[in-house]
């Protein structure tokens, strides 16, 4: 995703420079890498000049500056699209090829709840999940034999969440929490995987999203614990039992209580931060590797070395990100079920 985009952007920047410098006399077709990506760039690119002539620190040229990098991984109110879609004629320079996010909060008064990219992607993920699993439920309800790759794939995931996540961590009461854990797992997985689709984004790379999910986990953990042991019992269960000499327990127990409650809150906060940081970092690394191509595009010889390396590295990191998408969904759900399990039983 980022690759094509960056490449295109870079190409356009080059064209821009060609035009701006009025330096088109020498038609040295030197940048071979450009031919691979853009057919429309028919007119020649001049030989690279001294990079110092370019204002490399300028935000528009700097592919590796923070604004540019974070722009690709953060929420916004527009989808980036391939630039050629916005190009009306060959010479036109498209700075930002974007399509606004359709406003979904129709029921809210004007000015409230503007739909962002991530909100839209969450709706897409929700629709995909509902479609998939209601379809699966229909199939399974008929009592047919599990047939077909997709059916078995989905079933394998569902059974995995049940047998490998919920059952060992929660124990005999796991069935009550299964719908929550399954939804959690697949919702996070869907958002993570949507982040791997070109021109979309990873909503789990935004802190409010993961915080909302962690809040849900917190509510379920505290709710189920209180339901099981009562409010006072739940709070008491946070402090491990200790045999202390003298009147030490008068001091220790309040202290322990404060620490345990703090830890209880922190571990849920960390749940949110872990997922957010993993997704954000992964996509940032990808953006940086692709950004190298843009940075070195001022020099042909450097490009010849760096561009293939960047492409290979971004492929490798994309694969890693694909793995991380599954891993983080697993980790989040696993920890959620671990917390639920520990809230069910006293320390």
């Amino acid at each position, binding site marked *: 995703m980022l690759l094509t985009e960056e490449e295109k952007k870079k190409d356009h920047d080059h064209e821009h420079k060609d035009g701006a410098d009025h330096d088109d006399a020498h038609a040295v077709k030197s940048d071979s890498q450009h031919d691979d990506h853009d057919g429309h760039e028919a007119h020649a690119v001049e030989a690279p000049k*001294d*990079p*110092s002539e370019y204002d*490399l*620190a*300028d*935000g528009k040229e*700097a*592919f*590796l*500056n*923070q*604004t540019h*990098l*974070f*722009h690709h*991984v*953060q*929420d916004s109110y527009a989808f980036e699209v391939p630039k050629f879609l916005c190009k009306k004629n060959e010479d036109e320079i498209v700075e930002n090829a974007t399509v606004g996010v359709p406003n979904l909060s129709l029921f809210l008064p004007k000015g409230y*709840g*503007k739909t*962002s990219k*991530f*909100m839209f992607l*969450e*709706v897409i993920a*929700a629709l995909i*999940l*509902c479609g998939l*699993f*209601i379809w*699966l*439920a229909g199939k*399974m*309800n008929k*009592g047919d034999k599990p047939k077909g790759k997709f059916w078995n794939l989905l*079933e394998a995931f*569902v059974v995995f969440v*049940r047998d490998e996540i919920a059952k060992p961590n929660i124990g005999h009461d796991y*069935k009550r929490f*299964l*719908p*929550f854990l*399954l*939804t959690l797992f697949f*919702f996070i997985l869907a958002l993570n995987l949507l982040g791997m689709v070109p021109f979309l984004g990873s909503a789990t790379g*935004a*802190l*409010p*999203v993961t*915080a*909302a*999910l962690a*809040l*849900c986990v917190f509510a379920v953990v505290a709710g189920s614990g209180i339901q099981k042991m009562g409010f006072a019992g739940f709070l008491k269960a946070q402090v491990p039992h200790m045999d202390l000499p003298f009147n030490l327990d008068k001091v220790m127990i309040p202290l322990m209580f404060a620490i345990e409650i703090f830890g209880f809150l922190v571990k849920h906060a960390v749940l949110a931060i872990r997922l957010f940081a993993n997704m*954000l970092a992964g996509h940032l690394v990808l953006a940086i590797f692709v950004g190298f191509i843009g*940075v*070195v595009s001022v*020099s042909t010889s*450097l490009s010849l070395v760096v561009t293939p390396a960047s492409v290979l590295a971004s492929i490798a990191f994309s694969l890693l990100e694909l793995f991380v998408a599954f891993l983080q969904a697993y980790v989040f759900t696993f920890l959620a079920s671990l917390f639920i399990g520990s809230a069910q039983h006293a320390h």
Partner: protein
Amino acid sequence: MLANLYFNIPVLLLAESGHGEKPNPLAFPVDLGIWTLIIFLGVLAILTKFAWKPIMEALDARERSISDDIDAAAKAKEEAETNARQYEEKLANANDEAAAVMAEARQDAAAAKERILAEANEEAVRTRDRAMADIEAAKNAAVQQLAESSANSAVELAGSIVGRSLEKADHSKLIEESLKRFGS
């Protein structure tokens, strides 16, 4: 030239863009959080009702049926083994029985043969004896008849020769005398 670029890279990394605000990865737009909460809870509600419950039930039902099938298969196998053992036993018994039946039949046949032969022999002997007796009787009758008729004719002949007719008593007496003579 290249060195120039390399020296510039740190600058690039640290560069502040002239336009746009500074990126803040920890920015916390609350509306996105609330939106996420709503969407997540919505998905949870919908999927719990229309997907997870039916899927879990179907999985449980399938697992139950698989476990039942395995139990049934084990039971069926056991039964089959018992049956096979029984049939083998029966088969062995049947062989023995068949041999016994054959032996008995052969014995019966031999006995019957003996009996039939004996009967036939007996019958033959009896028939021959009867025939012999008949022959004897017929021979005796014939001899007697011959004796009587020859006596009569001798008497008649003698009467005619002597010219006198004998009284009946004389007649009988004469016959008896003649027979005695004839017999001796």
